[in-house]
């Protein structure tokens, strides 16, 4: 069994919305004003730390991204490394997917216990947190949420059907991210470009959120009655 898991971890993964990928693609293809897709397996790291502490500087040195200082702020860049503000002492680092077998899972003799993360950056951050001896927390949360990307000139209209936040650009400019609700579901909502938004629901809510979006998109995707 060990041999099987040790070869291709990435290939064994199945994203929370894999079963809807085809549906999302078909519906999106039928609209020129709003599209939706899953961006699976983004690396997400939950970091709880006092942003003024020494260990916070150490961690920022590893991520290469400073800490956002207020509600809604995002530092870094989408598609690279970005840090989202969750609360005054809680942050979410989002980076691209990468899978590297840690010592202990790769068959090498070193490493007594395998780390619980397979992302090299996360492994370095966890180690730096542990070595610091300071209060704080670095946890691989990649499987906690998946990411839905909704884009197009009507994307905001769709989100406004179920989100209590003011999503107008004057209140919610590009590169703002907040924790809020869509319908009854708690999500992270991140405006990555003028007409492009990322929704990050917890994995077990992803199917509901996707179906909610498909329903809310109907007026922009359905074939008009002639």
């Amino acid at each position: 069994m060990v041999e099987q898991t040790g070869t291709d971890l990435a290939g064994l993964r199945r994203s929370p919305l894999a079963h809807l990928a085809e549906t999302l693609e078909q519906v999106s293809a039928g609209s020129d004003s709003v599209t939706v897709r899953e961006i699976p397996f983004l690396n997400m790291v939950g970091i709880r730390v006092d942003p003024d502490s020494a260990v916070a500087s150490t961690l920022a040195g590893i991520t290469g991204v400073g800490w956002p200082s207020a509600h809604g702020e995002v530092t870094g860049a989408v598609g690279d490394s970005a840090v989202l503000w969750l609360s005054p002492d809680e942050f979410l680092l989002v980076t691209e997917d990468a899978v590297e077998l840690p010592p202990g899972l790769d068959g090498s003799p070193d490493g007594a216990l395998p780390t619980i993360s397979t992302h090299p950056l996360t492994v370095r951050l966890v180690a730096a947190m542990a070595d610091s001896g300071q209060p704080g927390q670095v946890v691989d949360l990649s499987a906690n949420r998946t990411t839905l990307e909704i884009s197009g000139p009507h994307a905001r209209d769709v989100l406004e059907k179920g989100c209590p936040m003011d999503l107008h650009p004057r209140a919610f400019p590009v590169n703002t991210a907040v924790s809020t609700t869509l319908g009854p579901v708690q999500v992270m909502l991140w405006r990555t470009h003028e007409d492009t938004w990322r929704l990050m629901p917890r994995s077990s809510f992803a199917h509901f959120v996707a179906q909610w979006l498909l329903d809310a998109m109907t007026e922009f995707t359905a074939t008009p009655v002639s």
Partner: protein
Amino acid sequence: MLLIECPYCGPRDETEYHYGGEAHVPYPEDPAALTDRQWGEYLFYRRNTKGLLAERWVHTAGCRKWFNVVRDTATYKVQSVYRLTDPRPSTGGAL
């Protein structure tokens, strides 16, 4: 719908919060020394104020922080919002 201003996130709809009951109910210094009646009163007895009441709220769908709100229980008007580390605001002796 109440619009409550989280001290960390700003104004959000009531649906993003959960209510935590009356604030400033001190935990007994020596719980084991309490009689059953005293323990029961600590757990369950509240002022049930009509008017200004200091109460706890948590921003469940946002920053997940607890904070205090002074709210009029008759009109629902929120008078002030303050962090757990902030001093209790004066309410003219109404609390």
